[in-house]
């Protein structure tokens, strides 16, 4: 399923109108600062992972996703996760009545020092495996049409297109499963596509490189 977030190749999105680099502030309003920090701080409670967080932002009306400003989508996602994980109720958010929600466990909100450590340590996505990758460098691969109604990281514009594996990136946490709270590793590849294969109008002077997990790919001969 293609949501409002899957924007690669969408037409008629208008000009970019970038703000000059030297004049652009990191945040454009105080509420943006707070939404950003609330999202990171609550993420440290360990109740959801990065793919659940991305999926929560994506699960909304496609038009609303595009019309909302960036941090509005973060706010939508955050409120959704807080309710779904039982940390706050819909009543507490003041949205609608009649939905249960409770904090049943005691969670430890990190202090500034712990938060800094978490941020500077990061969270890598490599998962150990004894399996061997199915594809090697130089292999032609066909990107499968995505069947999932859930979260996925295979852009629509690459589906059904043949590319070439140019790097094996190791076994990484698989987003489609991770968004469901299932932590499993799948091999990740860097796949190169000719612009001319992706877009009718594109010249061969363009190449697009996409990181794709093994379940997204079929062999396409050499």
């Amino acid at each position, binding site marked *: 399923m293609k949501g409002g*977030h*899957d924007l*690669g*190749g*969408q*037409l008629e*999105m208008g000009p*970019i*109108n970038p*703000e000059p*680099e*030297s004049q652009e502030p990191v*945040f*454009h309003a105080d*509420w943006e600062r*707070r939404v*950003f*920090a*609330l999202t*990171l*701080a*609550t993420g440290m*409670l360990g109740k959801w992972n*990065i793919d659940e967080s991305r999926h929560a932002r994506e699960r909304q009306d496609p038009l*609303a996703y*595009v*019309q909302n*400003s*960036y*941090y*509005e989508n973060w706010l939508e996602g955050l*409120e959704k996760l807080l309710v779904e994980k039982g*940390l*706050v109720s819909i009543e*507490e*958010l*003041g949205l609608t009545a009649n939905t249960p929600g409770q*904090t049943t466990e005691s969670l430890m*909100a*990190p*202090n*500034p020092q712990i*938060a*800094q450590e978490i941020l500077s*340590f*990061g969270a890598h*996505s*490599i998962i150990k495996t004894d399996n061997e990758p199915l594809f090697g460098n130089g292999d032609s691969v066909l990107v499968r049409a995505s069947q999932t109604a859930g979260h996925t*990281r295979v852009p629509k*514009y690459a589906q059904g297109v043949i590319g070439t594996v140019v790097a094996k*990136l190791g076994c*990484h*946490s698989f987003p489609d499963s991770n968004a469901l709270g299932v932590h499993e590793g799948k091999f*990740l590849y860097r796949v190169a596509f000719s612009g001319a294969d992706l877009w009718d109008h594109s010249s061969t*002077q*363009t*190449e697009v*490189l*996409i990181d*794709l997990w093994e379940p997204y790919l079929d062999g396409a001969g050499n």
Partner: protein
Amino acid sequence: MPHDHHHNHEHTEPPSDLELRVKALESLLVEKGLVKTETLNAIIETYEHKVGPRNGAHVVAKAWTDPGFKQALIKDATEAVASLGYCGRQGEHLEVVENTNDTHNLVVCTLCSCYPWTVLGLPPAWYKSAPYRSRAVSDPRAVLKEFGTQLDEKSVIRVWDSTSEMRYLVLPQRPQGTENWSEQDLQQLVSRNSMIGVELARSPEQKGEGDK
């Protein structure tokens, strides 16, 4: 809830109900002990004032002046960048892609806003906007033109769509006429936009532009 935002602007006047909604949420989460105000402030301080594109400029200028560092950077960017003290969230799997005379690199995240925070800080509004995310992959030459960047017609553009946890930093070409420049001075030429790939590094004549 109706919104009167234009889709390509991240910074239109927020309706007051949005401000109130965020304030109410913060109060609720503090009251429930799920977040601490001082932690929120520390997170904002970190990404508003400490982690930003000056980190990336340091990396690039060092790569321009220190061939050993550049080699290490191309081989394992995460490790090389960590040796300068830049590591952490959204920089766990870093890769540096080098511009050459015939290849230009451009970074995008068509699915959300993936960006190498450890070296560039938080992404600019345009990077997260629908127009950039849609067209960077389908019409990169036109996108570059919008940033005033005109490439040789023969050069290949490589667009990196950040769909995984790999994060990409462009190593722009060192500008001509900077042969005797120090690493410190060269840093002034490394714009954030040149490390995303929408622009080239500043020329010596444009040196002061970052301070305006």
